């Protein structure tokens, strides 16, 4: 301890700096471009526009148009940062290609985000010590999975959250161990949580990454102080917003943040056990497996195995927590939950592969005194043999499955009915119309007053909307019946009344995805 400390560092040696190695950059950007091209190809045609996509896009529209965080009363269902970010981009495709279905155009705005996510998968892979080939495998495993090519296109909050958590991980693994990188990691984690609150559960993974990265470092307490500052200070803006609006605590006649949290944690009905046949969670699992069983199965195995490998732990802890949360009995499991899982599974697979190959090649290196013996000769072939085996496995097991899924993503045209319906609605004079969330923005863009285009479930669930229609369902001119509107028959009385007292004037699409424009018969009893 009896050393003097002083400021002057030794002057930098006057050698020309080594040329910057751009290999990583080239690999990551090249592969990302490839995946992004696949992601963009047919992004408007597949998959079918979902109600949630319409919801978030419409809320982004509300942000763009200065209507607050939603065009209905914002009730703290989700923190708003994801669609605030979406709002920053989604106007551009809508402006360039106004003829597209609004949701389809909105999907284009997801591409920069997904590009960042792909690059971050590579960066995180490198920063947990993977060789280049393994980091590239991680990126491709993530990017080429049919699940990613399907859900990665859709406008989901989870995509925002997971990209920000990946950024937090990458920053927490900063090779320079820079104090402000840790602060930025905290801020990125907070942005992730404020994009989709459920990502909160994998914060321990970021802490593990920081803990490992600051091991034997003189600055560890400072690093955690910086992280906590970033996380708390950015994160507190959300409750602060609620506080400033007087909506932090539940009370008479207004929504509240804590009220919403209570609802999400307590009142929301669960999806059943993932193991019970026929439960919602089980069906969901099968639909995910339908898209990509390879990544989910191999990823789960690699995640569990990777828990025993120190360097992989930041990633596998995240994967393991997500698995545990999905397996908890009786919890609510949303369809896009898997979006959060994919990158961590992909990196875990790459990491375990890298570990196995490192072991094999270490074993395959002949001892210096044993060259020429038969054992050594056999060992020399170990690495090439393992690589060949892996390639065969990829060609036989992975490629055919992914080919089917990816081809579907690149060719299917599942949104034709929606596009036709949107065109039809655009041609109509503005009226009071009840639609699902997907078509809402198309109507508003077509000139319908935004307060006279009504999300169908708000009729029965939002008293403010009901107040706008003193005559009840008779004040509605048209209802557009889509699968989403018909999903839970009988639960929404006004919607049921509208469907009963209306006649079809136009219909689009096949029977299972039928979209009907129905005129309301105001005279009927």
């Amino acid at each position, binding site marked *: 301890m*009896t050393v003097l400390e002083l400021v002057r560092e030794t002057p930098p040696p006057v050698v020309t700096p080594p040329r910057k190695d751009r290999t990583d950059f080239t690999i990551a950007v090249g592969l990302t471009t490839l995946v992004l091209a696949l992601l963009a190809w047919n992004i408007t045609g597949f998959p079918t526009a979902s109600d949630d996509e319409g919801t978030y896009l419409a809320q982004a529209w509300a942000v763009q148009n200065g209507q607050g965080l939603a065009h209905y009363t914002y009730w703290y269902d989700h923190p708003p940062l994801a669609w605030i970010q979406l709002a920053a981009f989604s106007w551009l495709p809508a402006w360039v290609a106004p003829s597209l279905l609004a949701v389809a155009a909105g999907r284009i705005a997801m591409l920069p985000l997904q590009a960042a996510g792909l690059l971050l998968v590579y960066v995180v892979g490198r920063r947990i010590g993977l060789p280049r080939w393994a980091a590239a495998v991680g990126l491709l495993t993530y990017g080429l999975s049919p699940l990613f090519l399907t859900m990665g296109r859709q406008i989901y909050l989870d995509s925002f959250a997971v990209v920000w958590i990946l950024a937090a991980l990458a920053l927490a693994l900063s090779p320079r161990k820079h104090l402000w990188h840790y602060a930025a990691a905290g801020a990125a984690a907070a942005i992730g949580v404020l994009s989709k609150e459920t990502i909160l559960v994998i914060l321990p993974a970021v802490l593990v990454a920081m803990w490992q990265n600051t091991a034997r470092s003189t600055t560890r307490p400072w690093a955690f102080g910086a992280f906590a500052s970033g996380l708390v200070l950015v994160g507190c803006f959300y409750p602060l917003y609620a506080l400033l609006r007087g909506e932090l605590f539940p009370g008479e006649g207004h929504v509240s943040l804590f009220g919403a949290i209570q609802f999400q944690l307590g009142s929301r009905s669960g999806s059943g056990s993932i193991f019970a046949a026929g439960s919602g969670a089980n069906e969901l699992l099968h639909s995910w497996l339908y898209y990509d069983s390879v990544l989910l199965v191999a990823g789960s195995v690699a995640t569990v195995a990777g828990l025993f490998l120190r360097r992989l732990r930041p990633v596998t802890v995240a994967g393991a927590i997500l698995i545990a949360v999905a397996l908890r009995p009786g919890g609510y499991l949303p369809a896009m939950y898997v979006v959060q899982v994919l990158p961590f599974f992909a990196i875990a697979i790459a990491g375990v592969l890298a570990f196995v190959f490192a072991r094999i090649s270490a074993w395959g290196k002949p001892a210096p005194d044993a060259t020429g013996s038969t054992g050594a000769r056999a060992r020399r072939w170990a690495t090439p043999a393992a690589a060949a085996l892996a390639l065969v496995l990829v060609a036989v097991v992975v490629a055919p499955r992914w080919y089917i899924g990816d081809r579907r993503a690149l060719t299917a045209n599942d949104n034709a009915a929606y596009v036709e319906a949107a065109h039809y609605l655009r041609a109509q004079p503005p009226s009071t119309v009840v639609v699902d969330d997907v078509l809402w923005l198309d109507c508003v863009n077509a000139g319908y007053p935004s307060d006279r285009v009504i999300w169908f479930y708000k009729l029965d669930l939002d008293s403010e909307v009901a107040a706008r229609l003193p005559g009840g369902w008779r004040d509605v001119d048209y209802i557009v019946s889509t699968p989403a509107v018909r999903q839970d028959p009988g639960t929404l009385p006004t919607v049921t009344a509208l469907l009963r007292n209306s006649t079809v004037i136009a219909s689009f699409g096949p029977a299972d995805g039928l979209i009907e424009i129905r005129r309301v018969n105001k005279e009927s009893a």
Partner: protein
Amino acid sequence: MALAAVIMILVSLVLAVFAAVTLWWTMHAWRTPETLAGTRFAPPDGEQHLTFSLLLPARHEKAVLEHTVERLLRSTHEAFEIIIIVGHDDPETAEVAHRVAATAPARILVVTDHNEQKNKPRALNTALPYVRGDVVGVFDAEDQVHPLLLEHVDHAFRATGADVVQGGVQLINFHSSWYSLHNCLEYFFWFRSRLHLHAKKGFIPLGGNTVFVRADVLREANGWDGTCLAEDCDLGVRLSSRGKKVIVAYDSTIVTREETPHSVGALLKQRTRWHQGFLQVLRKGEWRRLPTWRARMLARYTLTSPFLQAFSGVVIPVGVAIAIWAQLPVFVALITFLPVLPMAATLMFQIVGLHDFGQQYDLRIRWHHYLKLVLGSFPYALVLSTAALRAVWREYTGRRNWELTAHVGAHLPAAPQKVAA
């Protein structure tokens, strides 16, 4: 209302940037493990080549002077002399000085300052002609100097070719009162981290003691400015402007230990003096001669920052209160919270710093100290702000006399009882 909102937003943004930059610089040493390691320096080689003249101005310091000199005499370095400077109107301190000088006549010289207006720079200038050593060191009468310090400084001068070595100073009595905790941490962050940045950037306001300057460099610079209230800062600025090499030699084991002012009033006076001194240095404009634009900007920023800091310490909480209760538009209200981010982060780092401080100095930090730290930060900011306003007022009305900080010896292990008796 719209104008008020615009003003709120602008003020908030400026304060946020200011607080963020200050935080960034304050955390300099801990930026990366490399920066922290980069501030280390090889231990002394056991050789002694330089001779030291240690100046010890003492004014109404009879309670602590003897102890300080005794400790200085325990120094392991062979070649040093102590010059105690006493005022001609302060017979009590002079009596103590002469008594301790008699114990080591070869080492200690007592010089009497006959200036009508007494202050520290004038006392130091009085002693300068008597200096025989290669290096002049300055200490305060209440300093607890480590016996190994001179050997370290000797080596630091030789190993780096520096003109000035600033040693570490640390207030230790963090437990004495709520404000002393903050005061100690201020020193900790300043000497452990921030000063390193200043030395690196070529602009350094030196500290008031444990500062060592080559005697020839000091004579060339005509010693200290007898009219300046922050003669230490001024000297640092002048030497920096002349391109002199300044290094910071810091280690928790050999820092000079000091005590915090014994009352809030004393703290207020001390701060007023420093702030006013900073203002004087700013007005003198020596810093304009700094070689680079960046160094000049750093100088301007550093010399004005006590005022900005004082201002923001009060304005930010007030702005937040307005934001919550004045029914501002939510967006504007959120913006007014921006400066709170770096401010709260600063507090967070102070908590970590307090922990680190406890470890470095082997002090037991209890939970209630952390609590005091958090609860005390706004009142402390209020004290600093008051001092800043006082400084501006005094400078404006031309009151430039020296308000002395009295010392009771709270940092000395046995001293408090002695004083109480």
